[in-house]
């Protein structure tokens, strides 16, 4: 009993960490740009596919693929922000949401055209491909590695935002765009930078997911973006701390749900989202509107 509980927890944590990697970029972009990016799941998907292709091209060096793949996706993110998103900041919310939704449609179909509509099997990572016994039952080493990566990314983000000059400028622009602009911050350039950085986070999540999910499908972005929305909402839109906690909660909840009440697994996630939105719309750590 204890063994299975621990294993369910671990599985939940590793799942939560993937959602966190996607939700962190989503949250950062929302916090600074004020845009909820539907296409963020597409960056996760593109990250996975780019890494996969680079892997098969370059003698299976996973780590090199993980560095180069997301950089390619960053270029995509740059084009999207610089030439499209920038034109709709002044418009009402539905238009911003729908612009990013248009990119979901475009990216999903482009992936289908380039890589085919079927699923692609993914390779394993040398050194992390086995399993380790935990309390007498085997647990994939790679999932343990992910559970380590998640908090490291969180720590890195925290250090960057709280301890560096760039982070201070980002926080300043997030809290008061006009004031930051008046003080000499080049806000449009900053927006582009933050968007590209958020894109990179999502794409790294996708790259890391390549060995984890086992199969790449064109719909993989859509399923994770909804989880990431849930996480970003319950943590408080724009709050990274909240997104991290939210990702842990959703990961564990869905892991326990899948193991114990599979019928209501998805239902639980969304009812939690609705309850948090109703009871505390600003989420756990968001500032009251």
């Amino acid at each position: 009993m204890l063994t299975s509980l621990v294993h369910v927890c671990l599985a939940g944590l590793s799942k939560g960490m993937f959602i966190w990697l996607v939700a962190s970029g989503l949250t950062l972009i929302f916090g600074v740009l004020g845009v909820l990016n539907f296409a963020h799941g597409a960056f996760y998907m593109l990250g996975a596919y780019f890494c996969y292709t680079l892997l098969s091209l370059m003698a299976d060096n996973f780590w090199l693929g993980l560095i180069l793949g997301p950089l390619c996706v960053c270029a995509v993110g740059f084009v999207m922000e610089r030439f499209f998103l920038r034109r709709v900041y002044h418009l009402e919310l539905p238009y911003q949401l729908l612009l990013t939704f248009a990119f979901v449609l475009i990216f999903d179909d482009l992936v289908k055209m380039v890589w085919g509509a079927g699923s692609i099997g993914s390779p394993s990572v040398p050194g992390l491909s086995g399993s380790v016994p935990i309390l007498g039952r085997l647990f994939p080493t790679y999932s343990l590695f992910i559970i380590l990566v998640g908090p490291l990314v969180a720590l890195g983000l925290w250090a960057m935002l709280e301890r560096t000059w760039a982070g201070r400028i980002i926080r300043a622009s997030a809290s008061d765009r006009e004031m930051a602009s008046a003080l000499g911050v080049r806000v449009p350039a900053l927006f582009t930078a933050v968007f590209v950085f958020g894109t990179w986070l999502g794409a790294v999540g996708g790259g890391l997911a390549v060995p984890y999910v086992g199969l790449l499908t064109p719909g993989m972005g859509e399923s994770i973006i909804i989880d990431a929305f849930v996480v970003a909402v319950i943590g408080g839109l724009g709050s990274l701390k909240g997104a991290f906690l939210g990702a842990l909660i959703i990961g564990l909840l869905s892991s326990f749900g899948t193991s114990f009440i599979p019928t209501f697994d998805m239902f639980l996630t969304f009812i939690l989202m609705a309850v948090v939105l109703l009871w505390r719309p600003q989420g756990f750590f968001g500032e009251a509107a």
Partner: protein
Amino acid sequence: MSRTWIGRLCWAAVLLGLLVVGLVGSRFVLYLAMRVMLLAIFALGYNLLFGRTGLLSFGHGAFYAGGAYGMALFYLHLNPDPLLGILVGVAVAALLALVIGFFCVRHTEIYFAMLTLAFGMMVFSLIWNLREITGGDDGLVGIGRDPVFGVISIARDGQFYFLVLLCFALTLWVVHRIRSSPFGLILAGIRENHQRSEFAGVAVKRYRLAAFVISGAFAGLSGALGAMLESNTDAFSAHWSHSAEPILVSLIGGIQTFSGPVVGSAVFVVLREVIERYTENWMLWFGLILLVIILGFRGGAMGAIERRLGGGES
């Protein structure tokens, strides 16, 4: 001749044209026309909430599915009467919209959108997982079309078409009445400035809820007719990606016009049919169209036409 009369003549011509299509059209044309009308019913109702009241919902697929599954379950387990079935479907959808809307209208903007997404996906997850009742990913199959009042056959598509046309015409009339009623004007007032409406003594939340339920009921009507047309139900009709369809359609046609959702539905269905002849990737093209609309033609097709004609709503 005033603009109202030109508008009325146009609508009469459209309905007459659809009537002729029903009499002479091939099976394929009939099916396509029915798909256009079903989507138009969905979008006309939806746009009361989106274009009129200014609320962006990502959960209306749930009400479409509510209508479809309500109708289907009633048909399969209780009574095969078609009109009764449609009524039950609409009632189920409206009730669902009442319950969900009760919670959702407490927020606006992004929080409203996220709440409707959450509730819609709750409905989807129930349909997906309660296999014994809903058939899960297979959906419910074997929905027949018994004669109306026991005598008028609607079994063939050529016959069922006229029931769809009747429902479409009714929807047009009702939505038009709602838009030009004091109630409809208050909805527009809420969209423009909800605080001012509040101070003017309007119970904003109650009006929002009313718009939510009405749009949900039309989604249910569309769903019930859709289930009859396809003779099965689809779990994914409750998914959020299906909720995006009426948004897309309204935008293509123009969200600030009455005729927008209808024009948008025709463009959407026909264009999709054409694109699918040449390529499987119709989503890519709709993505591009959506981009162009948002960046350049936010009034949609009818908005552009009206601007050319100069002012007023048709």
